[in-house]
């Protein structure tokens, strides 16, 4: 194309800057790019913090150590960190499954809420009488299956009618949000989710049988859901690398027409994968409420949105997701810890930093996908 253009217009100069696609960058360079992005965000954050009269180094120290230093109960910080990290890890891994097929599931928030809500409902019905392991299993399965079906609304419509899944899952997020607000704010006889003793509508605390078990290590309690989250991550890793379904998934992601040509039932693969994705997100929701011992209208903590960002930053690589979600959790949890000390900064500072980091990564991503060729010897081409 360029050649013919040059031929017909023989006096056109070659452009000064040319951009061509490339296959990818070495891992070492990629890591360098990311470290650079984080540093840039930290430097901008430094300036912003200083402008608010906050000592940025003290703030960052508190943030990066998630408040452990100088704390009388450091194990509480780790517990809080794990409470944030576990759902983020599961949700990010789950979202990466759907994203691999270029199915834009931005409905993590809604699916998480549905999982949490159904788990809460089950715990309210059987939590008092049934044995603990049964309650926990039913809560997890119930929440996960409900969320799986909730996510399937978008995928079935996409497969059957070509409905835009980004917008559909977006709408479903809000429908789920108002659903949980309805349950949380409506005092009625049928509403077993609320605390009966309170005149004001508040969610009740779960029965002890519905609490996520912990392993005591000294005064630190290790939440079982963290271990399950790692098991799930490992299983998904194997699923993607070693199974036929995992292979099908990546083919569909590369090109639907190739998959069709190879005789794959693409519709079924999409519906199946999105179900698994939403199922896991619902599971994370069930785990979370069982860990928190109660429902809340802000149960998601934005994990559906943050999960999209984590999955993307990790290039949908399962192992990278573990690292990225651990780092982003330090950022988010550390910020709430540090913000507690500095009145003029609140925990949303994490959003700001996260935004700058992602903007810089998105910008640097360009360098990993394209090569910029600067042509200093611009000669007139006569070919």
């Amino acid at each position, binding site marked *: 194309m360029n050649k013919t253009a040059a031929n017909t217009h023989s006096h056109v100069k070659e452009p000064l800057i040319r951009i061509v696609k490339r296959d990818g960058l070495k891992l070492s360079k990629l890591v360098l790019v990311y470290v650079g992005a984080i540093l840039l965000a930290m430097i901008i954050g430094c300036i912003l913090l200083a402008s608010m009269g906050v000592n940025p180094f003290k703030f960052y120290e508190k943030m990066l150590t998630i408040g452990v230093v100088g704390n009388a109960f450091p194990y509480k910080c780790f517990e809080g960190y794990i409470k944030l990290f576990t759902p983020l890890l599961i949700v990010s891994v789950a979202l990466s499954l759907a994203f691999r097929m270029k199915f834009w599931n931005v409905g993590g928030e809604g699916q998480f809420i549905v999982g949490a809500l159904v788990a809460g409902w089950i715990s309210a019905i059987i939590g008092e009488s049934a044995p603990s392991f049964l309650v926990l299993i039913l809560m997890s399965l119930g929440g996960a299956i409900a969320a799986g079906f909730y996510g399937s609304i978008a995928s079935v419509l996409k497969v059957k009618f070509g409905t835009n899944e980004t917008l559909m899952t977006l709408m479903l997020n809000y429908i789920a949000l108002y659903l949980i607000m309805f349950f949380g704010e409506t005092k009625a006889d049928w509403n077993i989710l609320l605390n009966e003793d309170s005149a004001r509508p508040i969610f009740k605390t779960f029965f002890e049988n519905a609490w996520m078990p912990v392993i005591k290590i000294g005064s630190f309690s290790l939440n079982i859901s963290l271990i399950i989250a790692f098991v799930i991550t490992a299983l998904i890793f194997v699923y993607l690398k070693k199974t036929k379904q995992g292979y099908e998934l990546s083919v569909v992601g590369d090109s639907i027409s190739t998959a069709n040509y190879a005789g794959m039932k693409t519709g079924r693969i999409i519906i199946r994968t999105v179900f698994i994705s939403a199922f896991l997100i619902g599971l994370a929701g069930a785990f979370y409420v069982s860990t928190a011992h109660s429902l809340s209208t802000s149960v998601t903590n934005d994990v559906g949105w943050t999960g999209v960002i984590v999955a993307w930053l990790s290039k949908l690589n399962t192992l990278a997701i573990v690292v990225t979600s651990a780092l982003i959790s330090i950022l988010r949890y550390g910020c709430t810890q540090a913000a507690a000390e500095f009145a003029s900064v*609140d925990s949303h500072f994490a959003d700001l930093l996260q935004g700058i980091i992602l903007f810089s990564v998105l910008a640097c991503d360009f360098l990993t996908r394209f090569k910029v060729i600067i042509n200093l010897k611009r000669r007139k081409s006569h070919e």
Partner: protein
Amino acid sequence: MNNEALGIFINFLFSIVVYSIPLLYGTVGEIITEKSGSLNLGVEGTMAIGGVAGYIIGCSTNSVTVGILAAMLFGALCGLVFSFLTVTLQANQNVTGLTMTTFGLGVYFFIGNGLASSGKWPIMTEHSAIINSWEAKIPFLSNIPIIGKILFSYNIFVYLAVIIAIVAYLYMKYTKMGLKMRAIGENPAAADSLGVNVIAYKYIHIMLGSAIMGIGGLYMGLNLGGSFEGSTCWINGYGWIAIALVIFAGWNTAYAILGTLVFGFFNTLQVYNTDLAYAFPNVLGWLSKIPPHLFKALPFIITAIVLVAASIRKKKNPNEPSACGINYYREDR
């Protein structure tokens, strides 16, 4: 109908417009963006940044006009970041938009908290010019009974929004630039081969759209009396509703005026349901029994139904830009 009931009904109609107009800014901004081929999911963040910047600068200069210009400027800056990343650097539009929302809310709370904690957050009632222009009504016309209240007693932002929506409609439909911009949204490669500067057009329209969203953010702030709450942002989900409204309005900024009122109708109903039930006990008594959350969810439910119905009919809305959400890389042609 007695006088009290009539009064409540008129107040209800009045409130629909007051509460829903910020949506129109967001929607028109997003329609312009999508029509030029970009899906910007960062409406919420753009409105937050435009709103807080416009409010603070407007208050410090004690002028609504400066406030509007500042809101537009900062909105456009968000648009500039979005277009630089997605148009020049080919970044994924979904992720960039979501990041813009996260970032925008981060900026909003950072500035708000920083100023509020040191007592420097501007208070709207202390700025006479802002209050005056906010409460100014059209002389004479607003004094007409009933019609005056329903049509002519709003603040300038309401009329500005309607004017922008109509101008945007005319621009896209009847001008050459508008035609070229729509062509890019449909098929950028074809537009490019006809000599349209795709990149410049995308930058201009993304920034223009974001600037309009910024005014909507400022309106939301002023409508809430300019008070900064530590926990909830002024925008509070309106940016997302605006994205839903784009579909409901069928990518047409003139229909968006109507769509805004329909969405606003449900949104206002949750505030007025008990009043209306009280005023018209026989006809509307049932309203007070419906949970307010249903009214809040209705805009999203309706949009979901519109989305599904449109795709089932297999007849794509002819107004929907085909290339929306897909980056244009020239050498892929």
